[in-house]
């Protein structure tokens, strides 16, 4: 497959695809309607292409993109499970996709009902009192939750609590969100079993601590068995416990953050509820809170009053809106569909199978790959390429790139930071045993290649549309947009056309 040109170099002057509505009103000159100085002088230099050119271009681009629908995607921490097609169809219904957010609520009761019922289901799944659907993604849920915690402390006259504790294995959004809410961050160490080091936690807990943010199972795929103890410790010192729900795929119907003692939970619906990831988004990051935090939720919230679905404004303690409108509604439609399709037993089975699949793969690889925390995992686990690196110079990146040659997406690399040369694998529950066996075979073959032909791995991938890309060049000479007559970044090597590479 040769390179696909940029859309800007296709087409020809005067060409266009879309037609505008016919002119059924007077075509008065713009200068009659708007002051000259407000007007654009030139035309925006957008492409000039026909519909067929657009179709072929973006069809080619799509064909150059790996996806869950094209193959196994064991990207740890991202829960790249199968996205049921029913969800897409429901999100496309005009009664959902074609309504305006400011319509009179009486004209959109079905939409509000859906949000209301989704909130109830999420509250039950998380064991929390109430949920808001506003946040657009996990990180947005985090900042919303932290703002609520901040408001709560302030309301109780404990505005001095300005520290958020975060385990060293945490996802980058956790500290970034805490900064955004104007907290100081302190890192809590992990213990030898991959959980929070209780002694270190005890040391750090003082009355300046606003919250401890945790993922459980954490980013090692390990369920922290001391969670009840941790919750007690944090609450005793007046802190709040925040649950990063990115890993909720492991606990549906099995355990609830509320029952573990968490005060705030965010969901990543694009992970747990299988709304597709869309090449990076949109997602949705609803948060649930325990009853003492309900007054601080952003508003408005859907409500059922005298049999009518309405949007109710938030109360006086609310932190306020965290965005315009009602949350990523069409993502919520997909999540609602997913939850209703699965029901309580189905959801439990989702998590059980996610756990089974992860342990199955882990078990089959831990003899060849170093497994730093060798214990039953939950829905994912983390291997390390550190020994390959030491012995043969083969890095986690090399292994990842080589995996691509087999029509499989690479696992997450170099995260969590506490594992060197991390290879974080999350198979998800929707994969078949046959698929897992294929992956295991590939990983075992690569381990063998690392030993016998490390140079070959350094050159991977070989079968992908492009070869290994130069990240350093991209950062050193940032080129973030096309412009006419740009010099090539590097002199091009000619590739003969019509010959396989």
């Amino acid at each position, binding site marked *: 497959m040769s390179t696909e040109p940029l859309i800007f170099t296709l087409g020809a002057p005067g060409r266009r695809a879309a037609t505008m509505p016919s002119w059924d009103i007077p075509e008065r000159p713009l200068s009659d309607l708007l002051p000259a100085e407000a007007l654009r002088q030139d035309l925006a230099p957008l492409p000039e292409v026909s519909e067929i050119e657009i179709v072929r271009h973006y069809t080619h681009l799509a064909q150059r993109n790996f996806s869950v629908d094209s193959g196994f995607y064991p990207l740890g921490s991202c829960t790249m499970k199968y996205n049921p097609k029913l969800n897409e169809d429901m999100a496309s219904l005009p009664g959902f*996709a074609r309504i305006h957010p400011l319509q009179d609520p009486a004209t959109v009761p079905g939409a509000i009902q859906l949000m209301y019922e989704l909130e109830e289901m999420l509250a039950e799944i998380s064991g929390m009192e109430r949920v808001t659907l506003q946040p657009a993604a996990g990180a947005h849920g985090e900042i919303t939750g932290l703002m609520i915690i901040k408001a709560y402390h302030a309301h109780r006259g404990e505005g001095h609590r300005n520290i958020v504790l975060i385990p060293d294995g945490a996802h980058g959004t956790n500290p970034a969100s805490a900064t955004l809410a104007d907290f100081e961050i302190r890192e809590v160490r992990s213990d030898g079993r991959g959980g929070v080091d209780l002694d270190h936690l005890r040391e750090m807990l003082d009355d300046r601590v606003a919250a401890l943010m945790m993922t459980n199972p954490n980013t090692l795929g390990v369920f922290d068995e001391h969670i009840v103890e941790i919750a007690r410790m944090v609450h005793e010192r007046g802190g709040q416990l925040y649950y990063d729900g990115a890993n909720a795929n492991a606990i549906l119907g099995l*355990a609830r953050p509320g029952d573990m003692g968490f005060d705030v939970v965010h969901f990543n619906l694009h992970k747990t509820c299988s709304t597709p*990831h*869309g090449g990076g988004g949109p997602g949705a990051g609803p948060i649930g809170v325990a009853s003492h935090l309900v007054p601080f939720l952003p508003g408005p919230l859907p409500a059922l009053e005298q049999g009518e679905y309405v949007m109710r404004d938030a109360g006086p303690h609310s932190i306020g809106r965290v965005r315009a409108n*009602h949350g990523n509604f069409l993502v919520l439609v997909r999540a609602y569909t997913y939850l209703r399709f699965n029901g309580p037993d189905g959801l*439990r089975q989702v998590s059980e199978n996610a756990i089974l699949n992860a342990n199955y793969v882990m078990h089959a690889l831990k003899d060849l790959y170093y497994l730093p925390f060798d214990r039953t995992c939950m829905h994912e686990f983390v291997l390390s390429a550190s020994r390959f690196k030491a012995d043969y110079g083969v890095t986690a990146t090399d292994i990842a790139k080589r995996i691509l040659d087999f029509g499989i997406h690479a696992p997450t690399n170099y995260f969590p930071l506490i594992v060197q040369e991390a290879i974080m694998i999350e198979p998800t529950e929707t994969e078949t045993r046959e698929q897992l066996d294929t992956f295991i075979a590939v990983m075992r073959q690569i381990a063998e290649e690392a030993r016998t032909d490390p140079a070959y791995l350094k050159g991977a991938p070989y079968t992908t549309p492009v*070869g290994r890309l130069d990240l350093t060049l991209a950062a050193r000479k940032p080129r973030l947009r096309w412009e006419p007559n740009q010099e090539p970044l590097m002199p091009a090597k000619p590739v003969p056309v019509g010959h396989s590479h």
Partner: protein
Amino acid sequence: MLRTLGAETIEDLLSAIPAAVRLQRPLHMPEATPEPNLRRQLQAMANRNLHLDQAISFLGAGSYDRYVPSVVAHLAKRSEFLTSYTPYQPEVSQGMLQSTYEFQTMICQITGMDIANASLYDGSTAMVEAALLAIGPTGRGEVLVSRAVDPQYRQTLMTYARARGFTVREIALADGVTSAQDLEAHLTNATKAVIVQHPNFFGNLEDMATFADLTHHQKALFVAVITDPASLGVLAPPGAYDADIVVAEGQSLGNPIGFGAPALGIFASKSELMRRLPGRLVGETVDDRGQRGYVLTLQAREQQIRRERATSNICTNQALLAVFATVYLAALGKQGFRELGEQCVRRAHYAFDELTKIPGVQPVFGAQAAAVPPFFHEFALRLPMPIAKVNKALLKEGIIGGYDLTSTYPELDATGTGSSCALFCVTETRTRDDIDHLVAALRTTLSKGNKR
């Protein structure tokens, strides 16, 4: 499978969860519903909503009814885009990466800015990110925001400002536009950013060049907010009036309106802000075969590397909506994008002219006709009847009426008169018949109301 793990039942694996926190009962929620039944239930739920193919809508105020050519969804919804994730492995993700690079370029083309990122959540949070960029790592300082900025955007900004610890002050209005005088009065060396929406929430054009000048005099960043980028087809781009940052809501660029979201946060800026930008950036590079390729770049700004010192906490963004916008802009192209703007302006002005012929209906701003501020595709009218009542009557005629300005701008209310202010929006989707239908229905409603 269990057997290969030396386990008997799944419980052997689940013992990793302490018994004390195991849920001992099934979740209380509706039982699993098979696909055929569920589809019918959801269809019924959707059918209870009045949607924009059923009613003739004049509602805008931040979300816009836009005609989306069929080609857009056919391409953007291809499963290779839909079911992929952030292109962490560029060798198998050139489709998303190149599309995003094209998106970044097109955003620069329509805004006249140097660079643009890969997307943020929506217009409101994009505006917050602009403020945060201006405020910088200390988290302290002052941001001035025009009162003619979308009320929901301002509320969102306030929420973040309270948490982050910076100050937000509102610049007052002067007859439907931002008061340059009041801006000058508030600008100090504590000011980090000035935020003005253009066209503003009332649909009126702002004197952006003057505001940019004033702002730059105080070495603050001038932030332009755009809620419907279609305006850039006819209006001078922010690059031309020297904005430092442009944030916009990109829903109306080919995305379904979807009850307001998922939406598309657009963020563009001058190139000197490159390393302070929030969110993902795609850049060009080459592969080891010498071919052009694209990668995520300048990641040192982002949370996954920089953690608590990241420029933003954003991770998942709105990538797919950016693909929709890219295909949409490509479909319109150079000429079509211009015509889109013209369609909006002309249709809105036709509607304004016809509506203001109705006895009792007046522009809210501008004492005489000549002084009505120039507007793009939204305009504010004063009606001699409460808007809620008007809208109820219009609904019976299959019309979704204007936005109730009185509720968010109480100062517009001439109390005791029983009048109200409403914001009407007319995009390219409203035909002359639609508009004439509104005019007739409003005329009838008001004359009936008068008789009672």
